């Protein structure tokens, strides 16, 4: 976390963590929340591929990334990052969520966890999309010799732990069902990227999940507000 004041950044609390929430574009209308990829952070400006979104756009720096708290000693999970997003939703209210890479996986999780607050989830390509095995794996203990410099962002622990976390296909299917059955939207999950790790193959097999291009997804969710 930095002390440099920036009026476009506010900090929201998630437990003892402080998360940087960036206002990339103000205005009225449906809000889009950008979730960055593994090892990345919220960009300084609205990415060119999102400029057609008709409303305000925010971005959240996940724990261990960007200007958010970098914990000591690791212990990351994608579910923890889902709760990061929930903290942002508590501040912002309902949003359409656009996630790249790891942020795409987290977008799916929060769509299942808070289906009435997520007004559509868009899953796009990017670092951290694949994750680790679909089955049990050896723990990261074997990497315990990582000499992480305290406070460095992105946190080396998050790179180690969330580039190989377990993502079973049936888990992704269950979360998809939670999102679809709990949402007021028609077809609240959109997959716009090209990569298909096992968990995402299971997601797109759900008949309510739409595979489309990004512009179509943005138009569809913006129209449903």
């Amino acid at each position, binding site marked *: 976390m930095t002390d440099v004041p920036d009026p476009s950044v506010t900090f929201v609390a998630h437990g003892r963590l402080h998360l940087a929430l960036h206002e990339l574009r103000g205005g009225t209308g449906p809000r889009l929340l950008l979730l960055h990829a593994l090892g990345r952070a919220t960009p300084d400006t609205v990415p060119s591929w999102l400029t057609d979104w008709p409303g305000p756009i925010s971005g959240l720096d996940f724990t261990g990334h960007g200007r958010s708290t970098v914990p000591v000693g690791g212990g990351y999970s994608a579910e*923890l990052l889902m709760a990061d997003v929930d903290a942002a939703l508590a501040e912002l209210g309902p949003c359409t969520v656009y996630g790249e890479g790891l942020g795409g996986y987290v977008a799916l999780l929060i769509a299942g966890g808070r289906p009435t607050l997520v007004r559509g989830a868009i899953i796009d390509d990017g670092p951290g999309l694949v994750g680790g095995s679909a089955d*049990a794996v050896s723990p990261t203990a074997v990497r315990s010799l990582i000499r992480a410099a305290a406070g460095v962002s992105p946190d080396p622990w998050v790179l180690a732990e969330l580039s190989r976390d*377990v993502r079973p296909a049936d*888990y992704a299917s269950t979360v998809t069902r939670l999102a679809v059955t709990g949402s007021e939207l028609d077809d609240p999950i959109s997959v716009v990227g090209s990569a298909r790790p096992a968990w995402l193959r299971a997601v797109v097999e759900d008949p309510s999940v739409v595979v489309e291009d990004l512009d179509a997804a943005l138009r569809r969710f913006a129209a449903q507000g």
Partner: protein
Amino acid sequence: MPVPESDLTPDELVARRFPGAVLPERSYRVDVAGIGIAVHEWGDPGAPVLFLLHGGFDFALTFSAFAPLLAAGGWRVVGWDQRGHGDSDHALLYGWDADIRDAIAVITTVTDRPAAMLGHSKGGSIGLQIVNAAPHLITRFVNLDGVPSRRPMPDVADHERTRMAATEVSQWLDHRRKISGHPQRRPGSLDELAERRRRMNPRLGLDWLRFLVTTGAHKSEDGWRWNVDSSLRMGGFGPWRPDWSVQYLAAVPIPFLGVLVGQAEPMGWETTLDSLRGVTRDEAGSS
């Protein structure tokens, strides 16, 4: 460290003096990537090492009656408080991998020779993964009710199962929102904390629970509070599958003793011998 006897009332002092319980002879901290882990030892420092891994919401000093017996049997008994438990640091993040990483750091700090290990409940399950991930560190392994297995799914319709999962996830997210107010654990008298704990472990006697309060809680002006981090929560959800532990069990390459609990209780795994048959090379036995 436990509240010093000089700060205990006469009634609390009675609770502290549980027959057979002995506080650790040596306590120190191991730094694991910035997290301070409290380590406690009983027995001859020159004896063979036996590591003890405690269960969820327990702490190393829950072995204060068991460890002295093992020490008397010729072991250097070494236990530690998992992050967020007992006297160890409260961390910002908690996770299974992190617990295993902390464990291996403690084990390799304490000794450079392979050692025996005993794990109870969550500690038994962590131990199973240690034996798989770093089998060169462990010579033999005792697992006390620490083998989660696939439980029979309740006979409910798919939509009902989805509803149950939705409730589980939303309750977990609600908990994460709630802890943003930096809550402390609820204070109470020694007996109130003992009673709360008994709801989790109804078979434990009140005198033992009162002893645990004097060793795993701290006193302040408004009463006693358990040391365990208030951000931790029982249960949870995620991609983890209990039957993965059975896969780890099948791969154990060292002498192994498993003990299953025959009675169901809130903190138990309820794994049955039937669910493990065929897993091990030698037939599993119960005790």
